[in-house]
């Protein structure tokens, strides 16, 4: 008999702020957190804007063990801030009886940001013009003189996990997965499975990521995946609109405290929601494109509904992957339309990426928190910047204004480059 799994704590660090309530109110008000890129000089890049976490943000305002986190990268910093909020909101800072080996972590955090300046300097120092190649010895001499060991080590994708473990003394099962834009949804799904089997009492789960650095933006610009609407950044992210021209990068972290129901009840925790379904699939189609009929997305949603024991008629809200790229939004729509059939037109769908941008690996965790808050306040956030109707996107995207309605069961989608699809079913606890 598997255990029921509930959410008892939430926290986030986003381009709109880093406390739950103010960001949630901003999302309900349909605000945009997008502005000029200032983390590096992007003035000549094809895309010069994104959603950045405020420069004033520091994890030191949140953590207890500051000395353990000196020299961390941005992902770890975001993860620490979000997880500390979640930890406190779950009341775990006031709970002394947690067995450290029963406290696990499952994150979907990204690779760290390359130390670009020193990387480029070393690369150029190592270049042998005559041989048109790298002279490794020359490269090594320069690299060893300018690169910092700590900075390099902190770029490893397991580092946010490692730092959270030290901060909260979590010695149970510990994972980081990195399935591109699906990562943190997948992390929450797998954390749920670990709790269902009873292999931990409490899991910290979510993601943290930034790709707002020269090579990250370069990579997505070369793929022509980013919006280049430089003259109007705040309306550039237009999920499901006919005139969408790509996604807008965001950064940050979402963290949740997941717990077995029995553990949560025993310690008298406030239960925010229950996770009842998780689905995961691979497109196995093409490196560059989604499956044209959204077969993988369909399969992930179907699995999640089946596990939750609900039907499409029961779903009150879909938190879409909705990136604002041509391909994703029409393919996601196709998959929803096909699976939800006659219920598709009447199921509200929205994408908060229209407001925060796309937090890449961290996106799914922030969207899972949005589902929790939608259940709490019986209100769903809008898809802003929705204008011109796309015949291929013909469903109800909650355009531009939040909507009050009874919300009992939500479905949250995340799809990653490389054909990775993950879906969660999150419902009101009863």
């Amino acid at each position, binding site marked *: 008999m598997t255990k029921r799994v509930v959410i008892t704590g939430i926290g986030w660090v986003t381009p709109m702020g880093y406390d739950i309530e103010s960001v949630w109110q901003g999302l309900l008000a349909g605000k945009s957190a997008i502005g000029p890129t200032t983390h590096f000089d992007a003035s000549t890049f094809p895309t010069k804007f994104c959603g950045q976490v405020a420069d004033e943000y520091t994890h030191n305002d949140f953590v207890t063990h500051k000395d353990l986190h000196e020299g961390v990268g941005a992902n770890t910093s975001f993860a620490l801030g979000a997880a500390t909020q979640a930890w406190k909101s779950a009341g775990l800072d006031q709970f002394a009886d947690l067995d450290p080996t029963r406290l696990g972590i499952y994150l979907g955090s990204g690779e760290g940001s390359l130390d670009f300046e020193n990387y480029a300097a070393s690369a150029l120092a190592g270049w042998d013009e005559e041989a048109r190649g790298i002279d490794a010895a020359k490269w090594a001499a320069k690299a060893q003189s300018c690169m910092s060991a700590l900075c*390099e080590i902190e770029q490893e994708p397991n580092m946010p996990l*490692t730092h959270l473990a030290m901060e909260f003394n979590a010695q149970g099962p510990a994972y980081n997965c990195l399935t591109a834009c699906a990562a943190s949804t997948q992390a929450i799904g797998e954390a749920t499975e670990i709790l269902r089997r009873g292999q931990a009492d409490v899991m910290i789960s979510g993601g943290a990521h930034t790709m707002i650095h020269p090579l990250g933006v370069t990579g997505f610009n070369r793929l022509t995946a980013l919006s280049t609407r430089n003259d109007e950044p705040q309306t550039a992210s237009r999920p499901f609109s006919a005139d969408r021209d790509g996604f807008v990068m965001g950064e940050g972290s979402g963290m949740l405290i997941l717990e077995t129901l029995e553990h949560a009840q025993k310690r008298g925790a406030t239960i925010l929601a229950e996770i009842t379904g998780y689905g995961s699939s691979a497109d196995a189609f093409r490196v560059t494109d989604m499956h044209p009929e959204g077969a993988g997305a369909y399969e992930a949603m179907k699995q999640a509904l089946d596990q939750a024991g609900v039907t499409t008629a029961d779903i009150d809200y879909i938190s879409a992957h909705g990136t604002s790229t041509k391909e994703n939004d029409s393919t996601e729509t196709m998959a929803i339309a096909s699976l939800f059939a006659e219920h598709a037109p009447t199921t509200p769908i929205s994408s908060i990426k229209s407001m925060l941008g796309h937090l890449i690996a961290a996106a799914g965790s922030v969207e899972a928190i949005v589902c929790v808050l939608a259940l709490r306040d019986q209100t769903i956030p809008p898809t802003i910047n929705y204008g011109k109707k796309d015949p291929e996107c013909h469903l109800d995207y909650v355009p531009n204004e939040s909507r009050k309605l009874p919300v009992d069961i939500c479905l949250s989608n995340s799809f990653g480059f490389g054909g990775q699809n993950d879906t969660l079913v999150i419902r009101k606890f009863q």
Partner: protein
Amino acid sequence: MSRRVVITGLGPVSALGIGIDETWQALLEGKSAVSRVDRFDPSGFPSQIAGQVPDFKVVKFVPKSDRKATKVMARDIELAVVGADSAARDAGLVTRSTDPDGYKSDDFKPTYASRRMGCHIGAGLIAADLEELTQAFVQAVKEDGSFDIHKWGADGMNNLTPLWLLKYLPNMLACHVTILHATQGPSNTITCAEASSELSIGESLRVIQRNAADACLSGGADSKLNPLGFLRQIMTGRTNTTDNDSPTTAVRPFATDAAGTAAAEGGAIVILEALETYQARGGEGAYAEIVGFGASQTVNREKGHIKADPTGSGVTNAVRAALAEAQITADQVDLILPFGTGSPDADASEVAGLKAIFGDRLSEIPLVNTKAYAGNAGAGGGAIDVCVAAKAVKEQTIPARINCDSPLEGVNARTSPATKADLNYVLTYSTSFGGQNAALILKKCD
């Protein structure tokens, strides 16, 4: 009642060779394949030795129709693709990739339906190809030769292929493997450094147990054989910098004269199948059954996360969880494939962690270490150990132990030739730089 899971195919790729036969032969002969770095000139690096996979052409491991895809494969991806091909063939699986001609026909019958096959592959931090990037960087420099980000943003970046980013996303190992073998079930990419591939195999185990798939391609691959990845390994302080002239004896795990590890490239994919579906397809002769898995995190606030934890408590916790699931006692373990990098502090930590479980009996259980043979292949290393553990169980043979003339006290790791033995339960575990730990217990098939 969860389903039983067996290992039915092995695809190791390391300095010892490609496929289980070459690998096993080297382990019987006790031949280390650690060598001087030949991928680039290592003379400017303090450590100059590595585990390097013998030359191969990745196009030989993919169907003709997929040759174009090999152009967007970083080395790490190639290693996973080769490992997957090797494992699927070893298991006798009919997939899109092992039977490309059959796949095109209308009556193609793969061993498993696509949706019933999962894929879990551990990956490292893939370093961008330095030469490829620098060729583009040199198009964006100021008059003094330094990098000019304005030129880069305006035009320099266009010297990179449009698909450049897709070579370096860690989930591209699984992406290519799922496409090649047409697996559409649950898939994941675990990125917990050296623990990644055993955590991935553990996740495949859970996916099959809970009936979300019948079979999985599972494991990991990683390459540190590029200047940046190699330097990062050196920066961890765990590589050998004193034995550059004698690479085959440089990595000496659990020896009193251990002096660091060798960075490497490599990995392995293994095939896991539900015992019931394996038997239903007429399978017999699986390598081993996976009867226990445990995962844990090391936390030592005093030492932080860069230094090894002297108590080894993370290893203890992961191994304990695996033993508990296997419902066996420490006395029943016949062989251990430890992590053992040959870095003195890390080795000592493991020994402390093992002693907390096995006590004095640790001195009786043989420890076979593959890092002495092939170096530390990061996220791929654990899966190589799982291959060796599975083959050892199947052959009822303990591979040769090497490079340990003077073992640490209480550890049975002394250099000795391969030998036959009764092996019912074998333990293997990995522990990452960062503190994630994973342990697996393999059992001889009934």
